[in-house]
Each structure stands twice: as structure tokens, then as C-alpha cells.
């Protein structure tokens, strides 16, 4: 049963990516072109027009925005996944967690393409590869689990309360501004910095910038705390989905 579910999740992820690729003329190229264009817009705005934030600001902003886009897409696409698959839920007996997991995995595959673009830009800008890159692995795992946890909770609630869709984007925009996506935590004055550092997203953003720009290993204590919060979020999210699982087949699409 478990192996069958793994096969189903992996093939569904492949199918979703392949279908998305087939929906446009340029297909796979958009996965790279779209984030590259977004980064170019930020460069134009921050570096060329505003001359804002000093020499390190643009790369740190690109890192923050790239990582945040991945987390946000996992939360939103994962959050809508059960709701958008209600027709399937009514026809077949499957654990509803399958749907958000597939959405998040396909977003993660696309993220790796985007991240490759980011790395090339960073190397060109004078931030070469370094040994601390190995620290990205636990960082990404923590980020994925945190996004998955929030995505699971949303996935559980959106089918029961579809009105939530109208507020999720706004709430996530606020979360973005509170999470050090567009500013570096180190630039925030105390005691606000200590308060913001309680946010696990801000911790992982700071750690990612340290690795990619300065070759610094993550603060392991901070990362461990963020990981524990992420694991707890994931477990709570999975529990909430399972708790409401029997209600979804009874909902109208």
C-alpha cells in the first residue's frame, strides 16, 4: 500500500510537470525564463533606478525572493490541492494528503531550476560556490517541511471553507514582510531583531544568505529550532488533513 502510494505520488508529480510543460509553446524554458525576468525586474528597480541598500542588497533580495516564492507556491498550491481535486476525491479512495504532496513536489522540482538560475547570477556577481553549500540541504528540508505544514493545514481547511482563498494571499504577503524576505535580519535594530528571529522563515532566510553570499555555515542552534518548528507544523498539518479526511468526499465540487 505504501509503495503504491509512493508510485502514485511520483508519477502524478511527473504528470503534473509534464502537463504544465505541454501547455505553452516554450514549455520547460519558462521555468527558467520566468524567474530570470522577475530577477531582472528587481535588478532594474533596486540597482538601476533606486540605487538602494548597498552592494549586497540586490543578491540578498534575489535570494530572499527566490526562496520565498518556492515556499509560497508550496503553501498556496498545496493549500488548494484537495479543494481542486474534489471530483477525484469523490470517485476513488485515496489518502487526501496525496494531493498537496504532489503539488508541493512539483513546485519543488521547478524551484530547483529557478535556484540554478539564482546560483549562476550569484557567481557572476562575485559570490562563488563554497563548502558551506552543503548546509543548504538541511536548510531546504526545514523550509520544505515548514511550507508543507502550513500547506497541509490550508489544504485541510480550504475545501470546508473556500472563502479562505480570498485572504490567504494577503496573509502571506504580510508574512513575507515579517520574514526578512526583502531585508536582512542583521540590518534590523534590536530588540525588533530578536523578536523577528523567533520566526523560523526569517531564520532560514538569514542562513541561506550566509551560505550563498559569505560561505558561512548556518547557525545550527537556530536551524535546529527552525527545523523542530517545521517538523511540528508538518505533523500538525498532516493530522488536520487526516482528521477531516472523511468529510471531503461529501463536499460538492
Amino acid at each position, binding site marked *: 500500500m505504501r509503495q503504491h502510494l509512493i508510485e*502514485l505520488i511520483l508519477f502524478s508529480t511527473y504528470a503534473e510537470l509534464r502537463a504544465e510543460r505541454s501547455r505553452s509553446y516554450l514549455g520547460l524554458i519558462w521555468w527558467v525564463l520566468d524567474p530570470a525576468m522577475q530577477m531582472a525586474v528587481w535588478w532594474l528597480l533596486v540597482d538601476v533606478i533606486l540605487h538602494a541598500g548597498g552592494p549586497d542588497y540586490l543578491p540578498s533580495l534575489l535570494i530572499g525572493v527566490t526562496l520565498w516564492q518556492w515556499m509560497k507556491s508550496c503553501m498556496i498550491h498545496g493549500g488548494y490541492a484537495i479543494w481542486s481535486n474534489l471530483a477525484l476525491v*469523490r470517485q*476513488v479512495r485515496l489518502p487526501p494528503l496525496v494531493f498537496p504532496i504532489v503539488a508541493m513536489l512539483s513546485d519543488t522540482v521547478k524551484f530547483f531550476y529557478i535556484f540554478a538560475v539564482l546560483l549562476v547570477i550569484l557567481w557572476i556577481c562575485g559570490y562563488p560556490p563554497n563548502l558551506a553549500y552543503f548546509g543548504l540541504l538541511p536548510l531546504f528540508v526545514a523550509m520544505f517541511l515548514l511550507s508543507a505544514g502550513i500547506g497541509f493545514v490550508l489544504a485541510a481547511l480550504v475545501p470546508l471553507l473556500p472563502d479562505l482563498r480570498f485572504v490567504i494571499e494577503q496573509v502571506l504577503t504580510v508574512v513575507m514582510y515579517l520574514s526578512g524576505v526583502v531585508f536582512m535580519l542583521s540590518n534590523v535594530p534590536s530588540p525588533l531583531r530578536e523578536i523577528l528571529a523567533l520566526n523560523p522563515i526569517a531564520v532560514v532566510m538569514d542562513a541561506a544568505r550566509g551560505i550563498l553570499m559569505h560561505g558561512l555555515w548556518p547557525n545550527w542552534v537556530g536551524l535546529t529550532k527552525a527545523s523542530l518548528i517545521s517538523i511540528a507544523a508538518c505533523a500538525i498539518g498532516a493530522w488536520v488533513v487526516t482528521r477531516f479526511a472523511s468529510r471531503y468526499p461529501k463536499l*460538492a465540487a
Partner: protein
Amino acid sequence: MTNEVLVELRNVGVAFSAQRRLNDNQFWALEDVSVTLRRGERLGVIGRNGAGKSTLLRVIAGILAPDRGVVKRGPVSCQLLSLALGFTPHLSGRDNAVLSGLMLGLRRREITQRLPAIREFSELGDFFEQPIAAYSSGMTMRLAFSVAIQVEPDVLLIDEVLAVGDAEFQQKSGAALRARMGEGHTVVLVSHDESQIATLCDRVLWIEHGKSVLEGSRDDVFAAYHRDLHLVEAAA
């Protein structure tokens, strides 16, 4: 047929909400249905529109959990014969066959082994490798049926789907399904076509307004059902 009980429903009720509204009243699609399904049995379910037949199949399949009553299911797979499950327009016939097969409970290697048979049965030829967005509705249904007929659960649940496609394929698909039902599988069949239930089923359950009225041998249940229909027509 053995006496091994695969699925047992006792006084099962299932409630739905009519709309997504606060304080919305529920309605009971199934109110009080009891039935026992034994290995090798072919059970037909009859009843008027809205009697709860399709809901009953989804309870047996394990898709719907009962809001009251008890469902006892042995360690068996119960699968609703669903056509075009998970079909995605931009994927090829082959990819859709794999995806749909996985959703219907097949393992990846089982589907891979059966792909040549699916391709042959669906009569799609080279279209099998093309996105199904390019298919006619008849071609899509041929592929859908060819995948669904590959699934071999312990209990096969069929909701009206007995034949699809054009006249020629209807004959072929109908024959394939009747052959499957005749192989000694346990089957629950919902159909408005009494002749099909009379031909294919050993036992019949009659439900009305979400309640089981009578369960028993085909001839006894049909006789009672027809008596009731005539009474209703006479009263009208």
C-alpha cells in the same frame, strides 16, 4: 461462491450537506441500509432515481464513511469502476493510462505489463502516444474503459458503466465486462437496466429512499419490486 463475508453493512446511514452555508441542514442520502456481500457473489442493486444506490457503492468502496451504522470490511480491495480517473488532457494516452491505473489501485509494474493490452483493446493505434486533448470523446472513453477493465479488485463495484463508445465498441466493452463478471469475481452492480441485473446477478438488493426494502434471490426481489411499481402507478 463461498460463505466468506467480504463486506457487511449494518443499518448504515450517510448524510450530506446540500450547500456550503453556515447552519446548513443535512439530508440523508442513505438512511438505513443493511447488506452482506460474500466472496464470489454478484449482487445487483435496484431502486428508483435518488434511492441512494450510487452512495451505497461509494460506502462499500470505502470512499464514504458512514455517519451512522457499521461497515465491516475484510482485508479486501473494493474498487469502483471509474472511467477516465485522473485523465489529464495534455498527457499522452500512455501516460494517462499509467496515471489512471495507479489511481485505480494498480502497481506501476502491473500497468507497464498491461500497456500493450490497453493499447490493443482501445484500438487507438499511434494515437496512444498522442496527448488525449487531440482525442474525440469516443476515443477518450475507449482508452478510459480499456484501463478500467484491467483492474482486478476483490470486489468490483459497477455504477451503470457497462458499455461505452460507438455501437461496435459498446459490444466489445460490454462483452469484456460480462466476461469479467463471469470469472467468479465478487461484483456489485447498480443499473437501471433490469434485464442486465437479471442476467448478470445472483442476488438483488432493493433500496428506496435510502432504506433497504428487500434483499434476496433475484426472482423474489424483482417480483416484489414490480408489485410495488404497479401499485405506485395504479395509485397515480
